[in-house]
C-alpha cells in the first residue's frame, strides 16, 4: 500500500517536472540554461520584495492637536516658588556691630562670642594693597602675584608639592570631587559629611556608598563589600571621602586607621581639613601631623580658609598631577572670579603668624580642656564631640522625639543665654536639602583669643539656663 502511494507521488512529480521543463528545455539566456526551479526562485524573490515594500501595520499615532495642547497649558497650574512661610522661618540671626572677635557687640551690648570659628584669634591684623576685587577668573588676568605667593606659602607650610587656591570655602570641595570622580567610579563617604561634600558627590555621578559616622569597623566592612568579587575594580578609580573634624558633630577622623585600610584595599583618600588646618598637630599642620602620618599618603587635601586663618576662600593641595589637572577641569576654579587679593595676603600673613607663634595652639588646647572640665556635668545635655576638637558639640540627653521639637528647645536655650548672660553660642543649622541625619545640638566655637573668665562665664551661663529650660519641660 505504501509502495503504491510512493510510486504514485514520484510519477506525479516526474510528470510535473517534465511539463515544467518542457517549454524551457531549450532556453538559453545569456549563455545560462534556464531551468524551471529558477522561475520559482525568481517569483519567490519578487513576492518577498513586494511584502517588504508594504507599510507594516502599526496602530495609528494620533498626536495632540493644537487646541488640545492649548487646553492642557491653560489647565496646568504650577506650585508656588516657595513653600508656605512658617513661624520658624521668621527668626533672624543676631546682627553684629563690630568685628567677630572673642568679644563682639550685639544690640549695643558687649557679648562673649562663641559663634565664630576664629580658632587662633587672628581676626584683626591685615592691610589692603590692591583694591578689593580681582575682576576676572584665574585664566584671564585674574591671577595676581599674591595668589601665586599664597599657593607657594601653603605648600611650603604643609610640605606638599603644590596647591591651588579657590575663591570660596564651600566651592572648594564641591569642585574638587567632580574633577576627579566621574560616572562609574566608586566613592565611600562618611554619612556625616557636610552639605558641600554631599553636593560634590552628587554632581560627580559616581556610585556612592555611605558608612556609619566615624565608625572604622563599618568602613572596613563597606570597603570589603565594595571590592569583593569585583574584577573590574582595578580599572575604576576608588575614593574614600572623610573630614578631619566633622562640622556636624565635632568628631575627629582616625587617620592612621583610614590610611591602613586605604592601603589594604587600594583606595585614594580625599580629606577635608576645613576645621583642623591650623588647629591640630603640634605646629598646626593638620590631621596628618596630629597622627604622625606622612602627608604624601593622603592623595587630596582640601580646606576652607574661613576658620582658623580668619580669611575667606579655600585651597586644595596634593601632588603636582592632582593640582595641575584642576587648573583646567575644576569648575569652581575656571569659571569663577579669583579670590580678592586682600584676602590672599591675609592668608599669607596668617600662615606666617602661625608658624612664628606655635604657642597659640597650646593656648587653644588649654581653653578647650578648661571648657570641657566645666560643662561635662550639664543637666540634660551631653558632650558629643572629641575632646580635642575646637567645635564643642552638646546634644540633648533625651530628645523630644522630633528634630523640630529639639530645635525649639535649643533655640530657647541660645536666646536666653544671649539675652540674659551676654554669651553668644549657636545651634546646628540644617538645610532641607541636607541629607545628613546626625542629631542636632549646640555648637560652641572655642578660640585661642578667649580668656579663662570668658570660658567660665559661658559655662556658668549654660549651667543656669539649661537647668531652667529643661526643668520647665520635666
Amino acid at each position, binding site marked *: 500500500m505504501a509502495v503504491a502511494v510512493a510510486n504514485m507521488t514520484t510519477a506525479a512529480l516526474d510528470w510535473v517536472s517534465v511539463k515544467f521543463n518542457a517549454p524551457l528545455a531549450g532556453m538559453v539566456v545569456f549563455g545560462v540554461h534556464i531551468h524551471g526551479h529558477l522561475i520559482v526562485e525568481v517569483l519567490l524573490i519578487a513576492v518577498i520584495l513586494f511584502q517588504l515594500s508594504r507599510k507594516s501595520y502599526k496602530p495609528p499615532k494620533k498626536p*495632540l492637536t493644537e487646541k488640545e*495642547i492649548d487646553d492642557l*497649558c491653560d489647565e*496646568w497650574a*504650577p*506650585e508656588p*516658588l*516657595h*513653600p508656605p*512661610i512658617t513661624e520658624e*522661618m521668621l527668626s*533672624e*540671626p543676631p*546682627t*553684629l556691630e563690630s*568685628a*567677630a572677635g572673642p568679644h563682639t557687640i550685639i544690640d549695643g551690648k558687649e557679648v562673649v562670642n562663641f559663634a*565664630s*570659628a*576664629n580658632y587662633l584669634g587672628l*581676626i584683626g591684623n591685615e*592691610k*589692603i594693597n*590692591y*583694591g*578689593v*576685587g580681582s*575682576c576676572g577668573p584665574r585664566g*584671564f*588676568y*585674574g*591671577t*595676581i*602675584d599674591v595668589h601665586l605667593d599664597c599657593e607657594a606659602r601653603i605648600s611650603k607650610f604643609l610640605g606638599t608639592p603644590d596647591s591651588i587656591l579657590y*575663591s*570660596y*570655602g564651600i*566651592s572648594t570641595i564641591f569642585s574638587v570631587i567632580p574633577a576627579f570622580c566621574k560616572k562609574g567610579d566608586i566613592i565611600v563617604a562618611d554619612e556625616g559629611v557636610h552639605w*558641600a561634600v554631599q*553636593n560634590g558627590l552628587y*554632581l560627580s555621578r559616581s556610585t556612592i556608598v555611605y558608612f556609619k559616622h566615624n565608625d572604622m569597623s563599618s568602613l572596613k566592612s563597606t570597603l570589603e563589600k565594595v571590592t569583593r568579587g569585583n574584577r573590574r575594580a582595578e580599572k575604576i578609580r576608588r575614593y574614600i571621602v572623610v573630614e578631619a573634624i566633622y562640622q556636624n558633630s565635632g568628631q575627629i577622623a582616625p587617620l592612621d586607621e583610614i590610611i591602613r585600610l586605604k592601603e589594604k584595599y*587600594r583606595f585614594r583618600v580625599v580629606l577635608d581639613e576645613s576645621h583642623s588646618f591650623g588647629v591640630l598637630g603640634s605646629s598646626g599642620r593638620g590631621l596628618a601631623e596630629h597622627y604622625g602620618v606622612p602627608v604624601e599618603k593622603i592623595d587630596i587635601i582640601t580646606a576652607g580658609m574661613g576658620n582658623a586663618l*580668619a*580669611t*575667606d576662600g579655600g585651597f586644595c593641595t596634593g601632588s603636582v598631577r592632582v593640582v595641575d*589637572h584642576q587648573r583646567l*577641569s575644576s*569648575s*569652581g576654579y*575656571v*569659571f569663577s572670579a579669583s*579670590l*580678592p587679593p*586682600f*584676602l590672599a595676603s591675609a592668608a599669607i600673613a596668617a600662615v606666617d603668624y602661625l608658624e612664628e607663634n606655635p604657642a597659640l595652639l597650646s593656648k587653644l588646647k588649654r581653653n578647650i580642656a578648661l571648657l570641657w572640665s566645666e560643662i561635662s556635668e550639664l543637666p540634660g545635655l551631653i558632650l558629643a564631640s572629641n575632646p580635642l576638637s575646637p567645635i564643642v558639640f552638646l546634644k540633648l540627653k533625651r530628645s523630644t522625639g522630633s528634630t523640630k521639637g529639639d530645635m525649639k528647645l535649643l533655640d530657647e536655650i541660645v536666646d536666653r543665654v544671649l539675652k540674659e548672660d551676654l554669651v553668644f553660642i*549657636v545651634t546646628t*543649622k540644617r*538645610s*532641607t*536639602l541636607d541629607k545628613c541625619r546626625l542629631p542636632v545640638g549646640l555648637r560652641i566655637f572655642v578660640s585661642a583669643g578667649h580668656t579663662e573668665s570668658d570660658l567660665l562665664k559661658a559655662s556658668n551661663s549654660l549651667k543656669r539656663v539649661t537647668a531652667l529650660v529643661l526643668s520647665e519641660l520635666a
Partner: protein
Amino acid sequence: MVKLPYLTALTTLISYGLLFLFGQIRDLFRKILDLLKFKKVQGKGYAPICLGLEDFYTRRLYLRIQDCFGRPIASAPDAWFDVVERYSNDNNKTLQRTSNTTKCLNLGSYNYLGFAAADEYCTPRVIESLKKYSSSTCSVRADGGTTKLHTELEELVARFVGKPAAILFGMGYATNSAIIPALIGKGGLIISDSLNHNSIVNGSRGSGAVVRVFQHNTPSHLEEVLREQIAEGQPRTHRPWKKIIVIVEGIYSMEGELCKLPEIIAVCKKYKAYTYLDEAHSIGAIGKSGRGVCELLGVDPADVDIMMGTFTKSFGSCGGYIAASKEIIRHLKHTCPAHLYATSMSPPAVQQVISAIKVILGEDGSNRGAQKLAQIRENSNFFRSELQKMGFEVLGDNDSPVMPIMLYNPAKIPAFSRECLNQNVAVVTVAFPATPLLLARARICISASHTREDLIKGLEVISKVGDLVGIKYFPVEPEKVAAEEKLKKLE
C-alpha cells in the same frame, strides 16, 4: 549669531586634525618610553587618577599655548596694569615668574565701571570697615556672620534692582549652584538657554529636576518647548510638572549679546512658568542708571520672578545676590545651603559694594556715577563701530561692553595674544572648552576708566596685529563710502 565661512571652517578643522594627530603620535612615543624605562607607577593596583583621553586636550593642545592664559599681574586690574613676565625652559610645560613687569593696556578684565582701582569715595570707607570689622567674620550668616553692613547692603541692593528684598552670598558661582536646588527639586522642569554659564548648569544638575535646553535667545523655540513639555508632563509617568523655571542671562559673556527679555517674559507669563534672570555681566554696566538689562529693554522688574547678579564685574568686589519677593527670600534664608553653611561675605567687600552703588545712584553727592555710565556706553559703541569698520568680525549688540572678535583657527589664538602683548596690549583669547571647538575668539571688555586715547591706541594695535594674523574676515568699509554717509547724516 556667527556665520562660519566654509573655507575658514575647512582650514580650522584641518588644523585641529593635525594637532590631534601630532598629540597622538607624542602619546604613543611616551607610552613606548615608559615601557622601556620600566617606570614604577605609583602603587600597583591603583587606576590612574586621570585616565588617558580625559586630559589629552590639556596635555597636547592647551600646554603648547599655556603662556596665553593665566597671566599673572602685579597691580590692581585698572585701565593700565602691570603684567608679570614669564619664561619657560621646557617648552611651555612649566612657566617661571620673573620679577619684571610690563605696563599694558587692559582690555581683558571685567572692570566695567572702573571700580577695580583705588577710588576716592570707596577706598577710604573700605579701609575703615576693614579696621572695624576685620577681613572675615569666620562664621556663617545664620550663626554669627551677619553684621550691620550685610543688612544694609541687602536693603540697598533690593532698592537698586527694584525688588522687595535681597539676600547676599560670598561668591557668584556658589549663588547659582546653591540657589537653584533650593527653589526646585525632583518633579520640576528647568528650561535653560543653550549658552548658559557653567554655574547655572551645575546648579540645575544638582537640583534633581529635569533639564531641557532651548535655542539660544529664540523666544519662538522656547514657546515650542514649553508647549510640548506641559502637554507631555513628566517623563514616563506623564504626571503634570510641579513647576517650571526658565533661566536666561542678561548679557551672554561669550557672545556679548543681550537677551531678548520682553519676548521671553511674555512667553513665560502666558504659560505660567517662573523666570530667573542672571545679570552677572549686565548689572551696573547697562541701562540709563545702571540698573541692568530690565531698564535698558523696558521690562518691569516685578515681571521677573528671581533676579540674580554678581558684584565682581561692575562693582569691583566679590560675591553675588538674589533679589525676589519677601517670601521667597525668607524661604531661601531658611533653607539655602550657601546661607547656612558658607562663610559670610567679607565685610570690606560688602562696604565696597555699598559705596559703589551709592556712587552709581549719585547718593555720594557727585555725578560721577552718571558720568561713568555715559562713558562706558560711549566707549563700547565707539570701539565696536571702529572694529567693524576695520573689517573684523565682531559679535554682540550695541551698548554691550563685551565684544568678541572671531579668530577661528587654533594657530591664530596664540599669535594674536602674543603679538598684542608684545605691543603692550593685554587681550583675552578663549578657545575650547569655553566656546565650541571651531569658534575660538578674542574677547574685549571695555571699561569706563578707558580714555579715548587708550581706546585709539588699542584699536591701532589690534588693527596691526589683525593684518599680521589675518583675521579681518569682512571687507573693510572704504573711506569714501564712510565719508559720504557722514555727509548724508549731517544734511
